[in-house]
């Protein structure tokens, strides 16, 4: 029964997935079991995304289905369903840049791969990154930027975090980012896509 729900979500059959989740809840399936099925489906979608078999439309659809099923399940949840997280990643789009698509995909992929991700949003000032590094204590910071204007804020943010004592790793990514800019900004690595971000987190924090 749970497998049918995993398949419905992974194959983007939204109506089937919702109907199945409702039926399972009505039939007395424990809410946590339904959420586990969702997580399993997300992992399948994540693998397909990595393999180039599914793309942004599927990630967004999966997020939508997950949201709707979570809302169905939530009222019946009696205990917290927090899985053990592998490590903490702080992420945000640097000051002056308001692009979020790439950052959101990286956040999604890190999340389904088991990392606790704190997303500061877009146009994030350097001081806010420094503060979040202190409070959230991430092992890895990911800086995103789509415009060439992101180069200097990235450089400044990394310098400020280092000056404040951050000793973890910094990865950068976005439309105009390449190895030249990794060197320029002082980042530890850059990633071309969300899978690269996950691979870096795995190398640095462990999987």
């Amino acid at each position, binding site marked *: 029964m749970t497998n049918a729900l995993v398949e419905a979500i992974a194959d983007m059959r939204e109506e089937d997935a919702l109907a199945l989740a409702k039926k399972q809840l009505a039939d007395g399936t424990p809410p946590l079991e339904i959420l586990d099925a969702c997580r399993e489906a997300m992992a399948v979608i994540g693998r397909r995304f990595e393999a180039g078999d599914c793309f942004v439309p599927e990630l967004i659809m999966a997020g939508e289905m997950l949201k709707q099923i979570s809302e169905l399940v939530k009222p019946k949840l009696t205990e917290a369903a927090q899985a053990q997280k592998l490590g903490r990643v702080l992420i945000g789009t640097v000051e002056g840049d308001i692009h979020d698509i790439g950052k959101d995909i990286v956040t999604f992929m890190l999340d389904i791969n088991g990392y606790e991700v704190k997303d500061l949003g877009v146009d994030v000032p350097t001081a806010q990154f420094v503060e979040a590094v202190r409070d959230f204590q991430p092992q890895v910071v990911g800086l995103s930027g789509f415009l060439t*204007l992101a180069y200097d804020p990235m450089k400044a943010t990394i310098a400020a975090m280092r000056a404040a004592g951050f000793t973890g790793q910094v990865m950068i990514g976005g439309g105009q980012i390449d190895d030249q800019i990794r060197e320029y900004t002082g980042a530890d690595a850059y990633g071309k896509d969300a899978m690269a971000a996950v691979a870096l987190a795995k190398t640095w924090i462990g999987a």
Partner: protein
Amino acid sequence: MATVTSAAALDAGKTAQQLLGERAKRLQDALQLKQPDRVPIQLGFGYMLAEMGGITRQELHENAAKEQELLEKAALEFQPDSAMSVYNNPASSLAIGGDRMTRFPGHGLPPNGSFQFVEGEYMKPEDYDDFIADTGDWAVRKYWPRVFPELGGLALLPPLGMAAFGHYNLYNLGVIQAPPVVKSLQFLAKAAEAQAVADARAVSSVQRMAALGFAPPTFMGALVEAPFDFMSDTLRGMRGIMLDIHRRPEKLLAAMDKVLKFELEHAIGWCNATGIKVTFIPLHRGSDGFMSLPQFEKFYWPTLKAMQLALVDAGIMPFVFYEGVWDQRLKYLAELPKGKTSGLFQFSDIYKVKEVLGDVMCIAGGMRNSLLQAGTAEEVRAETIKLCREVGKGGGFIMTTGIGEMEGCKPELVKVWVDTTKEYGVY
């Protein structure tokens, strides 16, 4: 390639008129897939002009005289074949009382911010039926009031289809005197006036540059988008359009068919009216990574290809900005008629682009912005020589930066780039 010649010696002693003729021909030859005398280079200075002139980006956008002065100064200093300033202009957006989908320096951004779009779901899923049934009516009465705060009064207008009621519809005209409608129409008139001034300045800028010996940039022309991007960028937004692919594919396809028709009517009309037979088509969601190839084949490529073919049939050259990475999609572009379209490639593997499309279309781009900002003179020189030799081979290549603009680029590296192109780009 012929023997290496010093850059300065090439153009020495020529009049502005001679230079203009040579440069315009150089760009035209490349666009027609012919081999010019040397690789043409076009500098889209963009915000680099503000950096060089020590002014804010806001001032660059809003002080046209200063902008022109800086453009002329930079063009004379670097001596490219053609040069341009920033592409987007805030004049009409400011005059209309602001719009929710853009942010310009000094308006929702710091004075030295960079122009950006704010994507949103400005068209809701439930709007599709109205959009398909009567796009114009929906746009004027429902969409404009949503995205332009000062045009809210237009929501009071009766359905625009009532205009076909001839004499009887005159009895409906009283509503145009309603204060919210009057106010909206006044803002619309102010925006029209501001845009007309900006258009006149753009024309005079091209004329000024021509008088100094610089050819018109290839970015000119009518502006349209791939129908998928039209539905995505200013209407459904990224999240909305991606959900539409799964939730309402038939409606999305029907809407795109409508968009294709009126975009073509607009572009062909614009080109015929101005005599500028070029249409600029910046692309967004067709890039590798957003959708799968089957989705691309169903939702993106058919209308984009049809658009380009229709423009070519009308004697118009599409100048297409293949933004992002198109490495997995080059084979589709190879279906386009040879020598009739042109493409600016941002982050695609430019050498592979040459291999697959070298005999299909003129290729613009090549130079990475990151190299001009953070590279060394030696790296810039080596990359430029490689680009001239490999992508420039046989002609059909216009050297520009991959994004066509140059904010943050170091002037000394730009000089190395231009001079090396002139030295090693000679055929």
